[in-house]
């Protein structure tokens, strides 16, 4: 079990760094809460991500109209921003949400997918800035937007 562990560890580290982006995307696509909502990752590129959330009855916040709860949009924007940051990092580093602001421009149309696009804007020693957009058919006619600030759990030296 322990023999040659150091070597195996070193090569495993190299592999993790090499495949960091895809590993992170796979891991964040399996986040229990996002899976429970039905959220899925459509595309991950450096510092950018696109996610999709198919409409489901369990997401409804207003039973009179069938509109999804604002918290659903919040959760997906938070997760998309986190994923965009992960895809912008060169190596794994834990980070947490400091604050998140959401502007709700209009209710999401019931019984239709919602798309979430997020972008990592800036990474500094301690703080990371990201923003997100939620839309349905037309990206320019978005339903909500978010601005988030995140913090490394440990200060970055690189």
């Amino acid at each position, binding site marked *: 079990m322990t023999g040659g562990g150091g070597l195996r560890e070193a090569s495993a580290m190299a592999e993790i760094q090499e495949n960091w982006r895809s590993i992170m995307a796979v891991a964040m696509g399996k986040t*229990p809460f*996002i*899976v429970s*909502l039905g959220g899925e990752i459509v595309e991950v590129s450096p510092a950018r991500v696109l996610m999709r959330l198919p409409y489901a009855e*369990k*997401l409804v916040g207003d039973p009179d109209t069938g509109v999804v709860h604002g918290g659903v949009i*919040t959760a*997906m924007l938070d997760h998309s921003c986190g994923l965009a940051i992960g895809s912008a990092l060169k190596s794994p580093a834990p980070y947490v949400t400091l604050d998140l602001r959401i502007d*709700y421009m209009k*209710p999401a149309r019931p019984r239709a997918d919602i798309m979430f696009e997020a972008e990592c804007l800036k990474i500094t020693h301690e703080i990371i800035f990201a923003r997100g957009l939620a839309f349905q058919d037309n990206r320019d006619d978005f339903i909500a937007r978010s601005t988030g600030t995140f913090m490394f759990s440990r200060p970055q030296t690189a």
Partner: protein
Amino acid sequence: MKIDLTNAAFDADALADSVPYCAHLGVKLGVKDGRLVLEMPFQDHLIGNPMVPAIHGGVIGSFLEMAAISQVIRETRATATPKPVDITIDYFRTGRPVTSYAAARIVKLGRRVINVHAEMWQDDETKPVAVLHGHFLIVAE
């Protein structure tokens, strides 16, 4: 939403029953010392980071928004669900895998727009996990 939150003896499961997303999070309403307090027992599907493990930031945001909306309904006696205009969530601590609580207060009660502050805590109310402040729009019937 057709729930009478103004009645202190209302059915605590009524919100969860009528709002599917509240049921998904397992949120229950209660009145403690005349104050509306929401309770969210921990469940595995609320996890955001399995390594810690920690409750997803989006769960925390959603829970706070439910507290804010419930408080607005209670104080305005609105019969239609108030619409969020904007919210800001500040995260202070990790949401641990235990029962969470949330309560809100109206900061400014306008005729159409209401400014609300909400707090979420776990074991100790003086150590909030996260807070929310935001504006909610009263929907005309």
